[in-house]
């Protein structure tokens, strides 16, 4: 009965690992590796946002009638995270470790408090509210 929570929490974990790997490479000054790892992190994070915004949130809003509630807050925070990632991409292109690490620290706080709210509150609500979590997970996996 926790399919949505488990699937999306797993995606968070995966993105966290990619985030840390990219940051560690910047910290070690390995820019080529950092570029690869950051690209993987950004791609998978954007795919995760897409899973939520295109599949989960519309279903959740339709089922609960909460269109201007938690999903709106989560969408706003996705925009903030995208802004921070754009800044990191610019810093990476300019090989500016100081700017990258300052922004990655900021993104980490933003991302982790966002994830915590989703994992503690939104996903469990979705698991309770949506009738067929397994089918929804299958749609996200296929997207």
């Amino acid at each position, binding site marked *: 009965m926790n399919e949505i929570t488990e699937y999306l929490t797993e995606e968070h974990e995966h993105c966290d690992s990619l985030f840390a790997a990219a940051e*560690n490479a910047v910290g070690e000054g390995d820019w080529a590796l950092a570029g690869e790892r950051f690209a993987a992190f950004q791609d998978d994070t954007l795919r995760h946002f897409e899973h939520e915004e295109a599949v989960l949130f519309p279903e959740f809003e339709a089922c609960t009638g909460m269109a201007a509630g938690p999903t709106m807050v989560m969408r706003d925070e996705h925009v903030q995270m995208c802004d921070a990632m754009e800044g990191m991409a610019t810093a990476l292109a300019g090989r500016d470790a100081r700017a990258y690490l*300052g922004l990655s620290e900021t993104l980490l706080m933003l991302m982790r408090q966002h994830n*915590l709210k989703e994992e503690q509150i939104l996903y469990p609500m979705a698991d309770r509210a949506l009738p067929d979590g397994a089918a929804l997970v299958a749609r996200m996996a296929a997207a």
Partner: protein
Amino acid sequence: MAGLSYDQGPVLAAPLRLFTLAPLFLMLAAVAAIGPGHDWSQGRWSPDALALTHLLTLGYLGAAMQGALLQMLPVMLGAPLRWAGGLSWCGLLGLATGAPLLAAGLRWGEPALLSAALVALALAWLPFLAGLAGALLRTPSGGAAAWAMRMAGLALLATVLSGLALAGGLAGHWPLPDLPRLVDLHAGWGLFGWITLLVVGVAYRVVPMLQLTPAYPRRLQVALVCLLVAGLLAWSLADELVWLRAPALAAGGGGGLLFAAVTLYLQRRRRRRLADVTLDFWRLGLVALVLAALLYLALAWLPATLRGAVEVSLGVLFLLGFAASLVNGMLYKIVPFLAWFHLHGQGAARAGGLPNMHEMIAEAAMRRHFRLHLVAVAWLTPAPFLPAWAAAPGLLALAWSGHELWCNLRAARARFLVHGGRLG
């Protein structure tokens, strides 16, 4: 669902005014303890030691913890404190006046000062407790972290009520039938209940969140909270039921050791390998907790002649080494992030044009604070075994570290304002 929205969280001014108040008490405590005629290191019952303890616990830790909970409960448990702005003002006014009044009242045994402190501290804590109780009861979040914080909230309630009873009793408003016992209960519930359980509950969420460590194992989370609560209850009843003394000692000391060991182990397995001043503050705090727990366990076997000094060392390790280190580390994550977050949320600029977290407070300045704090803890822990004058360099380091922290927090505030941020 209010907890999902920062718009419904407090404005930046609410936690920030408490955070910037807190380090002033580190400076005040250090300055108050310097100079001839002070006997804080000679035993925890000395008026100087009582005064200093309350400047640290009420002033520094109290202000920082109130500010942090106003800000973090919405994220950690999905439960904001209602009337956060009002609570913050009550905390600021109550603690800024109440902690020095209480310290002075205890130092000089002056009933008028104690009476004034009683009123100010009731203002600081009773509304906050009501708000905290509402949030902890409303939270949709389950699990060991929420339970640890609920237990910490109960311990805070016991600490505050016993503290107010003690202040009023010492001021002569009502009789205090068993003063030493009430003082012990007050200290035990404050230190082992409120501070330890709060740190444990916060760590369950914050350590994996900020340091990208594995999560604390679920069963261990529950077992540790049960162990600490059982230890606290057993310790509270051990005067009447003597057979509870050994289990209480083992549960309290063992619980502290277990928490520190597991957290240090998880931090070794963190995915983020970068140097991080918050991580260093946490490691220092956890090592101090290990030493404090070992001293606590050793107390039962120590000769009575050594006990007074060891208890003071234990207090320094626990309050400055453990609790203050963790609070310092957390402030360096919370304040720069909030400054950035509110600037971004207020539409001051896109993320790339805003100062990032590292630019809100310079890394070198945080490092300087860490080193001063480390010197203060290392110097003051053995101070009870040295001549009184030998503590002076440690106290100077403490005052300087408080000043450094205050400057760093003010720097973040100044950068926030320079970039067009609105505090309220």
